[in-house]
């Protein structure tokens, strides 16, 4: 009996670690085969992919720059996913947050407000924009049982076109640019880099703390967790499902919106059509991938987002230094997720 117990305590941890290790090894194996087939040096490619982030200050800064928005879009997917709904709209919510923050910043520019006023104002408008935009999907699900996958995908198009609309609006457009880009935000509406690291990292850390407290310590978090565990029991004991749906989308969207505002205020300083992308693909998709890696557990999000960014930086380096297409890295990232999902299922389906 005692022996059995020990196994049970050790079991889940070892099993979880081995799931990740096996999945990553398998994905890297496939990656290596493809790299070899294309005639590149496998070892150099693997080394570049995994170590670029740590070999130079620049590599590390780049990694953090990608990690921050990724954390936000990962939460955008993860929190509704706790109650088994797919928010595919993290990207759209991020775009809305960034765009509305820009509109507020540019509109208030003539007033010459100080940073202490302007920065919080932009952040709040980003949060509200992302949250309310996601709430549309939550509301449609709660009231009319419309699948959030469909509504959030559709709303992504709305958001992308809204960015274009603002970035080409005569009031905001930068007349010197051919591409849809607005004039820059006033300096007091932007956030600085500190030692090459965007100061938006502070808000990312705050968001991590916020999510942790929300899920682990509050009544609302308990209700979300309970619905995720067993909807019927949660309802039987008085938890309001419709409210929980709307709240999870609201929170997820708010975080994505905050991420969007921060992206504009630190990285770009103005609204650019096609922001919220990395290595040519949008952060929403990477957020979903990252969330699936941690199986929708909000506590694992920051680490997973960082590791994902390491691979993204590595991918850029591969393209630059070895002319290996980034798509090959995307492919192995997707494979990591697939392998994890499959291996995890294999471990757990054993009744």
């Amino acid at each position, binding site marked *: 009996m005692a022996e059995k117990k020990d196994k049970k305590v050790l079991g889940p941890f070892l099993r979880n670690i081995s799931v990740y290790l096996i999945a990553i090894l398998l994905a890297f194996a496939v990656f290596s085969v493809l790299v070899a087939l294309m005639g590149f040096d496998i070892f150099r490619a693997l080394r570049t992919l995994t170590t670029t982030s740590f070999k130079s200050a620049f590599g590390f800064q780049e990694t953090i720059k990608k990690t921050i928005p990724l954390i936000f879009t990962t939460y955008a997917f993860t929190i509704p996913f706790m109650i088994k709904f797919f928010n595919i709209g993290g990207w759209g919510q991020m775009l809305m947050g960034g765009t509305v923050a820009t509109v507020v910043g540019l509109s208030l520019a003539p007033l010459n407000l100080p940073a202490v006023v302007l920065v919080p104002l932009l952040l709040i408008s980003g949060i509200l924009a992302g949250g309310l935009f996601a709430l549309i999907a939550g509301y449609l699900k709660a009231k009319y049982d419309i699948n959030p996958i469909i509504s959030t995908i559709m709303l992504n198009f709305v958001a992308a076109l809204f960015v274009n609309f603002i970035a080409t609006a005569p009031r905001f457009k930068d007349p010197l640019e051919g591409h849809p880009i607005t004039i820059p935000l006033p300096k007091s509406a932007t956030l600085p880099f500190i030692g090459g690291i965007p100061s938006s990292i502070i808000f990312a850390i705050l968001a991590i703390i916020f999510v942790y407290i929300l899920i682990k*310590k509050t*009544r609302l978090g308990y209700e979300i967790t309970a619905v995720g*565990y067993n909807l*019927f*029991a949660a309802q039987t004991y*008085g938890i309001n499902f419709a409210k929980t749906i709307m709240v999870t989308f609201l929170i997820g969207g708010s975080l994505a919106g905050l991420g969007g505002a921060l992206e504009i205020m630190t990285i770009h300083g103005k609204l650019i059509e096609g922001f919220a992308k990395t290595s040519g693909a949008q952060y929403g998709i990477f957020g979903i991938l990252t969330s699936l890696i941690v199986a929708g557990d909000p506590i694992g999000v920051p680490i997973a987002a960082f590791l994902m960014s390491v691979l993204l930086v590595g991918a850029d380096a591969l393209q630059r230094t070895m002319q290996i297409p980034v798509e090959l890295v995307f492919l192995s990232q997707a494979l990591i997720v697939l392998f994890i999902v499959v291996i995890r299922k294999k471990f757990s389906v054993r009744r």
Partner: protein
Amino acid sequence: MNKEIFVELRNVRKVFGEVVALHDVNFSVRKGEIRGLLGENGAGKSTLMNILYGLYRPDKGQIFIEGKEVKIRSPFDSIKLGIGMVHQVSTLVPEFTAVENIMLGTPEDKLTLPLKKESKRIKKMAEDLGFEFPLNVKVRELPAGVKQKIEIVRALYRGAKLLILDEPTTSLVEAEFQQLLKSLKMLVKKGVTVIFITHKIREVMDACDSVTVLRRGKVQGTLEREKMSKESLVKLMFMEKEIKVNESALPKVELPEIEKSKEPVCVVKNIEVEASEKTPGLKNVSFEVYGGEIFGVASVSGNGEKELAEAMIKPSILKSGDIIINGESVNGLPTLKVFSKGVFYTPEDRIKEGILPDGSIKENVLLGHHAEERFLKRNVFIDWEEVKKVSERVVKDYNVFTPNVEIAIRKLSGGNIQKVIIGRAFVNPIDFLVTHNPTSGLDISTVEFIFEKLVEIRSKGGAILWINEDLDELMILSDRIGVIHKGELKGIFNRDEFDKYKIGLLMIGG
């Protein structure tokens, strides 16, 4: 009548977890008869037939078909052996037509379905039984009675010589039942054997050549048609063959004499719940439950007892009528508000509605109490220290066998899970407990423990509404028993009037 045995089950035993669903059952059916299989919910009827059909595997026992022993590992085997089953709930593909459904999976060796050719044959088969149904309409659009006919034809098309019908009348109106009867008689003439599972005595009397009665997983007896009577069947269904307390598998718990409260704790006045396809709802139900009283509710499952339980904690489902707790109406209140009036609930399906399987014992104890001031800090944060303290007390007071309260509740046994659910109900002193089948599927010592807890609450002056599928249990521990049939309260018996026969008869609408 042909006396040759078609199918025989010998010493079949099936155990689910801690519960023996079938105790070494012997059961045989002659070729070409309609055999009733009668019993209450949970008597083991469906389990026995699911074993014959290959959906369950017996833990012990043999199956013989026409004298030869056979191994049935899945419905695939049983279909090959000529056994067909029509389940209570339609198993047809809604988007397929009758012909497509009937042919589904049949010509295993061909790539194409000879739909045209076969639909003529299917039409003929149906007509021979007096069935008429559209062959080329999606079954989604057909009523339940028609779907059942399609399922019967499907079984025959696959070559069934034995047809098992599981509660076939659940969704039929009287005329459809009569029609079904006629068709079954025609089938029998062609040499097909029929097993008819039901809990309705009248149907057995109308339809069957003989009947086997099951009770608590044991065969109570088999009667030929000439010996069947309402009285004899009720007796077999609800009473022990001989009263042997030791074998009856019922706990011995005394119900002490105590004073009831003067005012009722709960008043239910003319409540109505909308009927639907699945339920008769509730029609004009009124009763009171006093402090220091256990009010039992007896019914055959699916007669509105589920809605009664639900209405008590979720009064918003009421169409009309009042529920009054301690003198205050709770109409329209959400569940947590009802709980705040001193009410708590333990649901019928403990896994599906009762627990958060992956949640810890702590998280499970909190469920339903999560809005209470004592478990909150500044109204927003959960006081997990307090939750832990309370959970540890539940584990101790209710003898939950677990190393600690952090463990996921799904790792506990059924009995221990139920103890947590019951313990959760008494985290606070409560005035009124609504509990639905709290003992179902539990071993006798756990049942006894739960009985003792109910008596304890009653002794403290609490009121208990106890909806239970097991009449024997109700009779041991209730002060009064109300009987619900088709959504109506058919009668209330005082303890000195308890009579198994009378209550049983009311339960089945007799």
